[in-house]
């Protein structure tokens, strides 16, 4: 079946679409940096090509229009207010009290009530590469949501296993920027998962710089250097994951970032950054016609 092989080869080069789930789990004004973290990753991911319809952005509190923000409608990531990561065209899908453990797990596993609008769903399939970014306050084996509940690493690993069994991802990149972040990926057991964390078990992730005009810390160190790294990436760049693992060494981050690749089938050196952070369409131009199915024959009257 030469023709069928041609079609199979067309789709065998990995993923066909990209999704991103970006979650900030902290509430209250002094956790401004967590919202800035999430928005910086959101901004990079949009710039590299993933559209709003393929991004599920969850922000547990509103910093931009917070009454304590001296510059309304802005969220800055650099001191001296250089970079406004909030921007003019932002779509927040889950905000405020909607960011709960239950909603997060429902988004991942796809088990949402039927009246949920499309912008709040993760409509991935078995050829999707998904980027999941979490930030907030965490501990050994848990991540705190909004000061009232936690998600444990066991729950997260089980959610990913559900996603695998329902074929909801092709490859998944999990990045977490919290204290003792490496504990969150210890329990993963599904295939094709790669994980990065900002600190090891027993270490705290630290914040970067405070801004004296706004009065809070603007970003966390790991995500700050991650953003700096991503600003150099453009849709056609060939940088691979090994460079991502080198982001923020101990000298800059004070904590030791960790990563886990044993569940990932491909070699991390062959995985491009844009496989997860961008939305690069693979287009192969062909001159031959491919018959995908046999023509439908009409039923004969009896």
């Amino acid at each position, binding site marked *: 079946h030469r023709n069928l092989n041609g079609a199979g080869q067309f789709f065998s080069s990995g993923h066909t679409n990209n999704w991103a789930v970006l979650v900030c789990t902290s509430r209250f004004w002094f956790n401004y940096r967590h919202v800035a973290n999430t928005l910086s990753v959101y901004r990079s991911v949009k710039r590299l090509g993933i559209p709003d319809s393929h991004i599920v952005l969850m922000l547990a509190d509103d910093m*931009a229009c917070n009454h304590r923000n001296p510059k309304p*409608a802005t969220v800055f990531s650099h001191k001296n207010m250089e970079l406004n990561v909030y921007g003019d065209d932002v779509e927040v899908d889950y905000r405020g009290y909607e960011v709960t453990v239950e909603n997060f797990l429902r988004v991942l596993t796809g088990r949402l009530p039927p*009246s949920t*609008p499309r912008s709040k769903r993760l409509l991935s399939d078995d050829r999707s590469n998904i980027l999941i970014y979490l930030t907030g306050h965490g501990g050994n084996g848990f991540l705190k949501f909004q*000061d*009232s509940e936690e998600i444990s690493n066991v729950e997260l690993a089980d959610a990913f296993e559900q996603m695998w069994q329902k074929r909801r991802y092709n490859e998944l990149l999990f990045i977490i920027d919290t204290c003792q972040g490496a504990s969150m990926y210890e329990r993963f057991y599904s295939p094709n998962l790669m994980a990065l964390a900002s600190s090891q078990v027993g270490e705290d992730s630290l914040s970067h710089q405070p801004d004296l005009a706004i009065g809070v810390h603007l970003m966390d160190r790991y995500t700050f250097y991650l953003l700096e790294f991503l600003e150099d990436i453009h849709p056609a760049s060939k940088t691979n994951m090994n460079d991502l693992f080198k982001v923020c060494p101990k000298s800059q981050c004070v904590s030791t970032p960790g990563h886990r690749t044993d569940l990932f089938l491909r070699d991390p050196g062959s995985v491009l950054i844009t496989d997860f952070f961008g939305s690069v369409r693979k287009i192969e131009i062909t001159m031959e016609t491919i018959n995908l199915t046999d023509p439908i024959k009409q039923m004969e009257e009896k």
Partner: protein
Amino acid sequence: MKVFLNYPQILKRWEASQVGDVDPGMSVAPPHPHTNTDSFQEELVVRPLHSGDIYASFQFRTVWEADFSRGNKVSHYQLFPKSLGQVISKFSVRELHISFTQGYWRTMQWGQPFLPSPPGAELWVWFQDSVTDVDGTWKELTNVLSGIFCASLNFIDSTNTVQPSAAFKPLGVGNVTDHRFLRYATLPREIVCTENLTPWKKLLPCGSKAGLAVLLKSEKLFHSSFHSQAVHIRPICQDQRCKSTSLELRQTLNAVFDLHTSGQAKREWSLFKMFSRTLTEACPLASSSKIYIDITDNSQGEQFELSPASSLLSQAVVLGDRRTFSVYDLTDQATFGSTRSLNLLIRDMLRPLLHAERYVAGYGLQTGEIHTVMYNHHPYRSFPVLLLDSVPWYLRLYIHTLTVTSKGKENKPSYIHYQPSKDRLRPHLLEMLVQLPPNSATEVTVEFERALLKWTEYTPDPNHGFYVGSSVISSLVPSTVATNTSITQEQPLFSSFFPCKEELSYFVRVYTEPLLVNLPTPDFSMPYNVICLTCTVVAVGYGSLYNLLTRSFQIEEPSPGLAKRIANVIRRMRGVPPL
């Protein structure tokens, strides 16, 4: 529970003053899909305020020649946004009014707004009478709208939805009186930010790329004392004879910019200072694109200077006052110079006749009182107002303590509609028609008790408090100037929103402040403490008791010394019993 006390003629006159109906017996030809003509108008009204602040009101109006009432399906969208068109046809919506507001409108300092709105989010919808399950459709509609506007409208459920019987009549044409098809809900806690403005701008035909919407930049808009964006959809008559209806979409945005926080030394305003943008062209899809500057207090040019000057003047009666406007027509190329800059100073304006306040009185976390005060500033005329209050179920109102007093004496309302709340199911609904005596303050007081919620029902930040939505006060206020009651296309948009059948009065809706009430909050670490303590007590107490009761005692010889053990070994070798 409905209490009718002397249902007056005034209420009937109120109902009859809504816009006239389309004759249901008249057959309307279904619109031919290829001749759908949409029209789009945009306008901006700038009114300098008493205190040096400035009020800017945008209105974008799209009229769509489509009729959904007979189940017609439409698939061709021209200027009308497709997302809203699909929502209207799928959920059989007759009228939809949704607003997102940040800040509170200060009536006494700023006068009356053209389009009032309460702080937070407000949604009220009239459904077509073909809908069978209104509550289910309402729930689905709020979910879909939460996706369109990026707001948490999915928190609207039966505990904050009410069916007002008199306060919210339809604003479009139609012979509708059955309030079972009306739903009203507010979310006073809802935040408005750029993520709500972006999808709102995308509904406009020109987006934010051309026309007046170019001015809508979030950094300046949200740095204001008051900001409100709304979407209003209603059926309107196509012409004077009203043989058929078309659908009107009005997108409105009101903002009040503060003189001091914008960092100004002089009382000088310009489009660039307000919006950090200037205008370069009108929206090419607009049939009319105008800017109106209120110059009523500057008729001789002595208070402020307007530059560039415009020769076009227009007069309009709005909110009971005849005001003069300087008009700039953006579709006329001659209006554009290099920069558009306005320098203004202002003095007086008409004192608003109706104004209201609300606050919580009392102390402690058990009981309290809600006071609503309504002021009538007319020197000799009294007029009736309809007060709508929707209070969440966890503030248990004691309606037997409801008192209405004006000038120290009791003032009996002529119509009361009260629906008591059901725990965790629906809120209190109180509607009253009160006659306000001239030049007086009327105070409505009701006592309440705070309920204890289940610990899972608290929000993640319970010490912030719980919000109670604004009260709505609707009224036909007597006016000194005759209002134009005919519907014409040439009327500016800001004076033609609320339909008016009477010449000597105009319709006003005033919203009070939302209330922030502290409920008794438990100590959330107690479950953890209790579990630790109980487990410890059980482990130590039960464990010890079980041990004591079930332990069996055995006599055990102490182990012998070294010499005795060696002797025992020798004795065993010899076959003799040990020591």
